[in-house]
């Protein structure tokens, strides 16, 4: 579980999301998806807020749903969200070396999947549906086909350079 963060959240934005999706129990997943789009993750305070606002829900139910689905993150993600595919097609064509190259390059702290400066976060996914181009990586919405450990370094270097090189 993440610690309560000292940040204050804009609950107005959460209200707006609930209104747009429909403030109903059956729309909980869509609400959480939009909240995560807004904040890059699901802050505990926001989940509690949703759990008390919507009829038939409790903070515990919201938390239960959020932890069930792999898409939801209870920790903030990076400005650049890297998704490295380790689906079958990518695995047999060498997704592990790609993954290792990303980890070697970005030097995450022990047990963390986000860089300390908040620039990058990394997650594995099982198939992005571009298996013909395996191994595949996605950064934010952009799909990078036929990755190798060398190509990954070039891609990351470019982003780092764009961001003022650190």
């Amino acid at each position, binding site marked *: 579980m993440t610690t309560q963060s000292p940040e204050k959240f804009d609950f107005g934005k959460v209200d707006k999301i609930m209104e747009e999706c429909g403030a109903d129990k059956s729309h909980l997943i869509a609400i*959480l*998806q939009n909240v995560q789009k807004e904040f890059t993750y699901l802050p505990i305070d926001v989940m509690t807020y949703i759990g008390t606002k919507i009829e038939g829900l409790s903070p515990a139910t919201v938390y239960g749903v959020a932890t069930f689905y792999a898409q939801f993150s209870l920790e903030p993600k990076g400005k650049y969200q890297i998704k490295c595919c380790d689906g079958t097609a990518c695995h047999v064509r060498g997704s592990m070396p790609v993954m290792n190259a990303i980890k070697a390059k970005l030097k995450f702290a022990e047990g963390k999947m986000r860089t300390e400066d908040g620039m990058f976060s990394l997650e594995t996914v099982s198939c992005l549906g571009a298996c*013909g*181009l395996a191994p595949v990586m996605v950064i934010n*919405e952009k*799909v990078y086909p036929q990755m190798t450990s060398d190509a990954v370094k070039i891609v990351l270097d470019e982003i780092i350079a764009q961001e003022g090189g650190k």
Partner: protein
Amino acid sequence: MNIDIKKEQDKAQELIKAQGFRVLVCSGTGCMANGSAEIIKKFAELGANVSTLSDYDKLTVVPTGCHGFCEQGVLVVLPDQHTTYVKVKLADVEEIFNSHIVGGKPVERLLYTDPKTNEHVQKNDDINFYAKQTRTALANCGKINAESLDEAISVGAYEALYNILNENNPDAVIQEVLDSGLKGRGGAGFPTGLKWKFTAANKGGKSYVVCNGDEGDPGAFMDRSVMEGDPHKLLEGMAIAAFSIGADEGYIYVRAEYPLAIKRLRKAIAAAEERHYLGKNIMGTDFSFTLHIKEGAGAFVCGEESALIASIEGERGMPRPKPPFPANKGLFGRPTLINNVETLANIPVIMRKGAKWFASMGTESAKGTKTFALTGEVNNTGLIEVPMGTTLREIIFDIGGGIRGGKKFKAVQIGGPSGGCLTEEHLDLPMDYESLAKAGAMVGSGGLVVMAEDTCMVEVARFFMNFTKNESCGKCVPCREGTKNMLKILEKIVKGKGELKDLEVLEDLANTVKDGSLCGLGKTAPNPVLSTLKYFKDEYIAHIVDKKCPAGVCTALKTIKIKEDLCKGCTKCARTCPVGAIEGEVKKVHTINQAKCIKCEACLKGCPFHAIVQE
């Protein structure tokens, strides 16, 4: 009815004629990743100068869905010139335009090269990858603008729905689906017509049609291609299903990893509603059908129908015990018909061409065609559709063009994490539900991963077990604990720490998980282990007894060594090693400290004198 579909088709075909010179550019997920957006832009820019087009007064660039041949992307097709270009880059566009579109001379170097004959192939149907395919569900994918309702109508969209509403006999539709012999393409292979009949029996109150677009099998992307490339076919199939079972509302559940499919479906629904092919009073009749899209949130088990229903209801996607079956009590407690994307995409074609036509393809027990996602160590990877009963040999060696790099074929994994692997001896088996089940595999969703001699089967089994262990929802103990323990044993074996008695434990566990699990995930999770144990027991034994990985894959069982006679002491490797495992002085033989070495092979690739080897 207030629409005459024939007139609509004529209008749509006129619109296509008015497009002039058509340039089809693939805009599926794969080709988009390879830059099709820029290519489209460039063609449009060049085509704007109409004075250069002698026989046409206009050039239109048509963004299509996936052609299935993503690895050769970006694909550019000139349909009237019967030409398919592969691996097109932005820099090639000008040459295609000047040489072929303006000058009438094809650009040889951008044609597909047959790996067997080394010759260029111009026509789509002559390319080995397409020659043996029969496309039904995928018929229009890659041939039409995936975001245009008119283009869909020009190739027959909503004609079947029109005829069905005209005849107004839902039972006749169900009979036709029954006669076609169509079975569910989502994995279980349940006869579709029968499912419709059961659901229709509960007509009267509120019912739903749900389309399963979760496509969780990693390595499979046929449903994605249909949703992205020909969305109206799916929508029409759902509307026909809804009419037959008496539903007026439906959901398409799409996995979140498919943003493009979601976007195109949304667009297609809006366009169809605007012109009354969906929504209230379809084509001016009493029949209404409203469709919603639900985005999944990344849980494989949500592909299981009862879990999927729970997920649409906003809950954790955990399977529910059956009965009750969805046909009786499904979404929000109402009768619900759940079908897979490909199943539904077959419906409009069956209704248009007839059950007899569909049933004429395939085998005695499996009718029609099936899509497969062909991936792994084959020359042509991609999405294919073949008649049921086609052999693995035809798929891998004719359509797939054989194994890459001249390697030897070893096995093929069918049906993803629930499936099994088959070997050389099964290559001539006709692919249908029964023969595959007999051999210990399954058609499943249609994922086909080809493996060559350098794939380690124990590692493959570990990979799938890791997947199912992560995806087990935890509701039943045998599945939750069994997959965890099986994974532990497999990890032990690939690390060279296995014992022979582990193999017995593994088999015992496999049977316990199989028998004691609630849903298909647990029931099928042991399949990859069981089938590799059956066909590749020697590889398990090599890992356990000889502490060797015959395929040279398992890191823990490898040793990286420097050959004393070849090392010139150039120090390069010592500088390359990320963990400082290499010692030695300039111009003296270097050595690897095996306790430190992580077997990354960085030194091996870099040695200018090829002195470093893997044993």
